Structures are given as C-alpha cells and as structure tokens.
C-alpha cells in the first residue's frame, strides 16, 4: 500500500478522499491556494502545502506545482478527485513519467473516452449500444433520408462542428426533412462556416442512467449497479438516486454487462462510470464514459455498502477488486441532493460568502459530505458546492421522506443555498411518482412551482416585523443621549431623506 497520498483537489471531494485515507491509515498531503488556508481539506489532512494564488489556473490546475509537492513530500500516489486535473491525460502522462501513481485509469483510457467520436467507435466495436446515427458528415439529402428511414423517425440533425444547440433540427417525420435539412445547413454555415451535418436518432423523454464500474489491472471487472441522474438543471445533475425506478433486474444486468465491456475495451483501471440515455421504451444508449470518481458516488456507496474511494486506492496499489459481482446487492434506496451556494430564487446565481450559521442534519439514514463549517468563507473562485446530502431508506418512499426531513433540518445562513429548491422537488408529485425525464426541472417543475401558493406568509411577515422592531429599538437606544428616555423619535428619518438608500 502507498505510504502517502497527495490529494490534488479542494472542497468536499478532497475531504472525502482524506476520510478514506485516514480510515486506511494512509497519511495525506493536501494542496491549497492562498484563499483556501482555512478550508476543511487543509484542516483534515496530515500535511498541507501552499501552491499559489486563488485562480485554479495558477494553483490547482498547475501540473508542475502538484508534481513538485508530491515529490518533495514523498507522496507515492495522487488522487485527483473530480474536476481540475481528474480527466487530463497530460497529467496522467506526467505522473507516469515521474513514477507517481495516479489514482485513476491510464492516459490511454482517458484519451479514448475523452473524445466523443473515438469513444463511440470503441464501445460500439465492443458491442455497446450507442444512439443510432452517423458521426461522419453526410453528403446528400438522399443519404440523409435513407439513414433516417433506417434508424427511424424522429431524428435529430446536428452540425458536425456544432455546439450549444446551433445547427440542430428535430425532424419528426419524412415530410419535414427537406426544409429542416436546409435550415440546419444554413444555420451551421453561418455559425461555424461549415454546413456539414450528421444524423442521430432523437431520444424522446430521455432519462439519464449510469453504471458505476470498477476494473483492476488483473483483468477483473464488476459493476455496482445503476444511478439515475435525470433531475438536471441546464444539463447539470442536481439530484441523483440508486436504484432507478425504471431499471428492471434484466435491464440492470444488461447495462452492467455492456458497461463492463466498454471498460474492458480500454483496459480500464479504477472506478469509472458509463452514462446512458434511456428512452420511454427502456432502450438504453451509451452516452459517454467518465474516467474518474463521480460527484454522485455516495448513493452507490449507501445502497451497496462499498467504499468506492477505498476501492480506487486499493486498485491503484495493484490489489484485486475486493468484491465479486455476485456479492454486490442494492439494499434499500439512496438519494443525493447537491447543496450549492446559489440562489434558487434568482436563477441559481452563485452566492459565495461567509457561512454565518450552520446546522448539519443527522439521525438515521443521513449522510452529509460537506466542505464547509460555521465561519467558513466560501470563495468566489471555485465551484460553489457546499455539501452533498444523501438520504438512505428501506425503499424510495422512505428515502424521499428522510431527504425532506433532513433538508428541513439543514440550516445554512449567510449565503443563499439550493436547499429550498431541493425541498420543493421532494414535494413535487412527478418526482415522488418517479415520472420524469431530463427535461423535468427546466420544462415541468418550474412551471408547476409558479402556480404554488406557500402557506406561511403571515409567519414570515410577523418574524421580519419583530426583527425590525428590535433593530429600531436598539438603534434608538444607541442614538439617545445617556439618561434620556421616552418613545423612539422618527425625527432623524424625516430630516435626512437624501440618506435613504435605494432598495
């Protein structure tokens, strides 16, 4: 086993990795930027080294600095967490060159899976279903029509050089194809100076289901069942769960099998995730493979009892995977809510700042993976994640009830958070029934929320009024000359209207 591990990350995920190391008895080295001296990952590590100014590009992303700290401290391995350098094949190359073990897959696996087209070709060759269509541009309208008929309508036209939805056209039936193609080409031309397009089957009501896998260098692979991550806001996962309500026992086995095939195709080592889209008929299609620890790994840990980070570390040290496929079982149900310092009532605008009070939920079935503490100043430079709150229940109903209960206990003041948003989702009928797809939050939830009338407006006004009352009295006492008494004078207000701030 490694004598020391450097953690090339910050925040909750650095703390998560430190916890695994601490439990395994492996000393850790934290790195931190100038703004992170007080951060939890520095306090929870055995060693901590300053690596530069706050912007990640000058600290957490600087390969030379990370390597230098690893060598000086004698760390034999580096855990990259997620984000920052986690899927950077140049970093993997460098670690290999410096003979420091990067806890993750090879640079080759990262490169293969990091390219959408190479990944698609690789897994397709391994027998993994991908969204039907072409990747290479299609020359003629005849060919477009032929392929569209082959894979079946509806189809999506996409600009080869595209991105951000430009040059994309949904074609529901043959009759729409001609004009849609013309428009897609012209849009692509003006946006990317390249009018070539390709074709993909359009997945209606898609759900995002992913399979967690583990692979070791001895050729062993297991999957740890699925996670459903369809609750997304602007294509960003916000709530994840395991199991998925739409995955049957057969589907789980089939998806697990192809995920392992995808991993085997790149001799995958460590923990990785195959993401799939699932359509309304429960067909599943490979989307991409994430070659790192996922943010949402705790839901899998809670239903399987397996510590994924410890497995990563053991595998990186050359050990075999510690569990066999037939021993892996999903027990109960787990849900994760990502708690961000964002204002859900202002379009999820980031709200960095000082955490003035904090009360973490606890009790049965509740896990909190946090990166903050009362008195911590959430910096403006990084991902505004505060914590990941996970609830386990014997079934989905209990897990939702627990999550709602835990969210209601969670007190974070000083910064706005997404906790209220999550409470509202847990109360949403469609979410409770499990009937949603990846468009749920943006297309359904917000609309329904606008109709809702919250019940405790009177208590809100009463409390604010009492606070104003006490503040005014305090100010009045402070302004009064010593010994003076009597009612509070409003005189100061009326003579200085110019001082009034504009709300």
């Amino acid at each position, binding site marked *: 086993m490694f004598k020391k591990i450097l953690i090339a990350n910050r925040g909750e995920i650095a703390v998560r990795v430190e916890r695994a190391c601490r439990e395994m008895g492996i000393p850790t080295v934290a790195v931190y930027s100038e703004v992170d001296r007080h951060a939890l990952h520095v306090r929870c590590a055995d060693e901590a080294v300053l690596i530069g100014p706050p912007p990640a590009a000058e600290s957490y992303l600087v390969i030379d600095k990370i390597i230098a700290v690893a060598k000086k401290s004698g760390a034999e391995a580096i855990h990259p967490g997620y984000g920052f350098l986690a899927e950077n094949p140049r970093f993997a190359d460098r670690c290999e060159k410096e003979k420091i073990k990067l806890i993750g897959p090879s640079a080759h696996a990262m490169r293969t899976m990091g390219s959408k087209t190479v990944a698609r070709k690789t897994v397709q060759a391994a027998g993994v279903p991908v969204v039907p269509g072409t990747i290479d541009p299609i020359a003629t309208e005849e060919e477009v029509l032929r392929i569209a008929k082959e894979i079946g309508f509806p189809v999506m036209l996409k600009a080869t050089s595209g991105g951000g939805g430009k040059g994309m056209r949904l074609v529901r039936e043959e009759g729409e194809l001609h004009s849609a193609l013309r428009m897609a080409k012209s849009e692509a031309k003006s946006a990317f100076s390249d009018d070539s397009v390709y074709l993909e089957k359009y997945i209606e009501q898609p759900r995002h289901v992913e399979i967690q896998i583990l692979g070791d260098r001895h050729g062993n692979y297991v999957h740890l069942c699925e996670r459903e991550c369809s609750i997304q806001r602007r294509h960003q996962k916000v709530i994840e769960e395991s199991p998925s309500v739409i995955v049957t026992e057969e589907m789980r086995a089939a998806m697990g099998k192809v995920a392992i095939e995808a991993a085997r195709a790149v001799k995958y080592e460590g923990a990785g995730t195959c993401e799939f889209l699932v359509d309304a008929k429960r067909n599943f299609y490979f989307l991409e493979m994430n070659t790192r620890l996922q943010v949402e790994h705790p839901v899998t840990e809670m239903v399987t009892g397996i510590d994924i980070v410890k497995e990563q570390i053991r595998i990186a040290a050359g050990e075999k995977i510690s569990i066999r496929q037939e021993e892996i079982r999903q027990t109960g149900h787990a849900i994760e809510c990502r708690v961000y*310092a964002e*204002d*859900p*009532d*202002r379009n999820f*605008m*980031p*709200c*960095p*700042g000082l955490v*003035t*009070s904090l*009360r973490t939920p606890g009790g049965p079935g509740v896990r909190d993976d946090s990166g903050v503490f009362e008195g911590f100043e959430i910096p*403006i*430079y*990084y*991902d*505004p994640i505060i914590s990941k709150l996970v609830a386990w229940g014997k079934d989905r109903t209990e897990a939702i009830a627990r999550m709602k209960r835990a*969210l*209601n206990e969670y*007190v974070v*003041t*000083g910064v*706005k958070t997404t*906790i*209220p948003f*999550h*409470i*509202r989702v847990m*109360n949403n009928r469609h979410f409770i029934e499990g009937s949603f797809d990846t468009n749920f939050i943006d297309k359904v939830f917000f609309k329904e929320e606008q109709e809702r009338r*919250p*019940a*405790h*407006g*009177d*208590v*809100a*006004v*009463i*409390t*604010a*009024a*009492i*606070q*104003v*009352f006490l503040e*005014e009295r305090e100010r009045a006492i402070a302004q009064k000359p010593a010994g003076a008494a009597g009612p*509070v004078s*409003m005189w100061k*207000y*009326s003579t200085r*209207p110019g001082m*009034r*701030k*504009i*709300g």
Partner: protein
Amino acid sequence: MNYIGTIGEKEVKVGVREVGVARYTVTIDGQEHQVDAHQVQSSVWSILYEDASFEVDVQGKNEEFEVLIAGDCYKFSLMNEQRKAMMRSGGKGAVGKAMVTSPMPGKVVKLLVNEGEEVKADQGVVVVEAMKMENELKSNIAGKVKEIFVKEGEVVESGAKLLLVE
C-alpha cells in the same frame, strides 16, 4: 411600532408590541397574533405562534426581506409607517430610478451598455462572473443609463453599485 408591508402589489399594516420577555403581539391588518420569538442562530428565529413551532430565516437589507420557512422563500418589503408616509409625499423623485447592484462578490467581465444608452426593462446591462459562472444582470426599468460605476475586469463586492438607470 407600526409598519407598512408590501407583498407583491398588496399593502398590509403591521403593528408590533412587546408584551413580555420575547413575547410580542403582532397585528396584521387589524388581526392580532400572539408570538413567542427567539433568535437562536445568526439570522435564524425560533417562532412559537399559537403553539405551532417554526424555524424562520430572515434575510433583510434596506427594508427588503427574503424570509425562508420550510423551503419556501417569502419576499416583501417592510417599512416604518412614518418613513413610508414621508416617501409617499417627498420621495416621488425616486420613481423611475434604478440602481443595478451586484448580488454577489465577483468580477465584472463585460459591460453590455454605454452611458447615455437607452435600455428596456429586463434588458441585460452587465455581466458579472463568480465561481466559474457568468451572470447577466438586468435593469428593472426602462430608461437611460445615467452613470456606470465600474470598469470591465474590476472585482466587486456583494451589493456594489454597478450602474444607474434613470
């Protein structure tokens, strides 16, 4: 003490009287409520109101409140009665003026308008970046950009004045 609350378009009269240790009688449009109120953590209040127990997080700045109860956010303004009356008579000049302020600490990455330019209500006027996300801030009202207080690239605090639309 009497206050005027403004909830959406609606105005309510609010009166507060202290009737014991941490006990208050709060009147809303004539209806009396008996309340036991304790501030238990920073901005968090424990409220007992007809024996019902609430945890209430009161965030308020400049008479504008955002109050969180059980995941619901209530927004309203609350103003001392005298002060409201004063605003009504003398404060008219303020109507039609709107300061765009930064709702968070961050960096001004782009000014979308110039001084003197006409803007529509809800038009984006400045982009502030924080935590890897760019946020377009909008003008609440239609009018002319009277003054710009920041430069592109400038780092600003939460609440910093960015520009004034008139």
